[in-house]
């Protein structure tokens, strides 16, 4: 009995050593995932895995379940069939995973009653991320420093999008899950987000995103693999 215990201990030690020596072992993998909404099956038997420095681009026609897939991965919805694992551990109730994962969607998670900087500070306190001073730098980087003290309801749609993306820079998330990141944003904003994504991928991050247009001309293309849902 003790020997088994010893071996198990050794194995776990070896695993943690491997994690320490090879941080590139981080991976999110999806096996046999399917999703139904009511009686309507959106997708079935989806399999993929994304490792560090990789970007998965989910495409497909409207209503094929792109957003549903992202919500399943982020952990907002539960998967009925299939498994989603982070470093070979199930992502459900896995706080290690949720600590390293950021999800940005159409609903920005911003409070209209608060100013830009207050909205950002809330996430900074929640994530215990960067310090207070860095918030200004982040707003500056996103090109909305001049709106720091404006209420979120006074911001334009594009500015709100930029503010919601500022959240990604607050703490050190490994996995970015982005639902249509370029919607409602101008060309310079798009370039900015693309360059942030590239920088993130270069720093051993990973991205899973949906976008209805082709990304062949985008600087993201070299990191990109594509997953097409539905009968496109």
């Amino acid at each position, binding site marked *: 009995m003790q020997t088994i215990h010893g071996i198990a201990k050794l194995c776990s030690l070896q695993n943690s050593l491997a994690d320490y020596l090879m941080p590139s072992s981080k991976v999110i993998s999806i096996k046999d995932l399917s999703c139904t909404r009511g009686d309507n099956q959106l997708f079935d038997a989806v399999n993929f895995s994304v490792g560090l420095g990789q970007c998965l681009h989910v495409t497909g026609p409207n209503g094929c379940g792109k957003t549903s897939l992202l919500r399943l991965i982020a952990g*907002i919805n539960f998967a009925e069939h299939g498994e989603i694992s982070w470093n070979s551990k199930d992502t459900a109730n896995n706080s290690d995973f949720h*600590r390293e*994962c950021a999800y940005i*969607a159409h*609903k920005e*998670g911003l409070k209209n009653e*608060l100013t830009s900087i207050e909205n950002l500070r809330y996430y900074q306190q*929640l*994530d215990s991320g960067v310090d207070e001073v860095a918030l200004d730098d982040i707003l500056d980087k996103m090109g909305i420093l001049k709106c720091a003290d404006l209420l979120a309801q006074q911001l334009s749609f594009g500015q709100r999008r930029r503010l919601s993306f500022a959240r990604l820079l607050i703490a*050190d998330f490994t996995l970015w899950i982005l639902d249509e990141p370029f919607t409602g944003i101008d060309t310079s904003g798009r370039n900015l987000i693309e360059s942030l994504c590239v920088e993130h991928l270069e720093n051993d991050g990973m991205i899973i995103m949906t976008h209805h247009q082709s990304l062949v001309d985008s600087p993201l293309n070299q990191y990109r693999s594509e997953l097409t849902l539905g009968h496109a």
Partner: protein
Amino acid sequence: MSNKGARVSNKGARASNKPINTLSLYFQREWQLMFRNTSSLIQPLVFFVIIALLFPFSLPAEGELLQRIGGGVIWVSAVLATMLSLESMFHSDYQDGTLEQMLIHPRSLSLAMLGKALAHWTATGLILTLFSPVLCVTFNIPNEQIWVLFAGLLLGTPSLSLIGAIGAALTVTLRRGGVLIAIVILPLYIPILIFGAGMLTQSAQGLEVASQLYALAAILALSITLAPFAIAGALRVTIN
């Protein structure tokens, strides 16, 4: 490589999610939001006062009758005023996506919900309780009973907010969930109402009210410990 080092150290800093920090963070944020939107602070109190004052107008003007029913009327008004404010408890969080972010955050959702419910109580139940002696005077309730009512409301209203939040969580995705919250939650309020209003009848007859106070305290202890998990579970199921 230096970049990797920064990553690791940063993660260490983020791991210190103490429960009390989570609780106070959400509590403070709720208050910050309520101060920006003062109608949510004033509405329940105004509603409470108006409902309670409708009774003297609609009942025969016998001083003793009002005195006898006054306590019960104030309790029912407090329940209705809490009810009214429940619908908005998660609504804006759901609309703007904050709720989704709470669901997937590594910090405990139950603690976050406890913080929210306690903030809701301080903004509704506590304010109503503090204002209740004024209403007691209009109902001509004797002084010693004012204290009984005050103590009962102080122990009972936090349970109203905590239990009500479960109903609010269950109906958050519905467009007009207000009526449904009332149907789901009002039956659960009955025990609190029985003990709270019962205290006044007892004390009017010169009997001890300690047993009712203990019962209210027991309900509060149960709802503080269990309701946060129920709220969190209800949200996970309804948002799914």
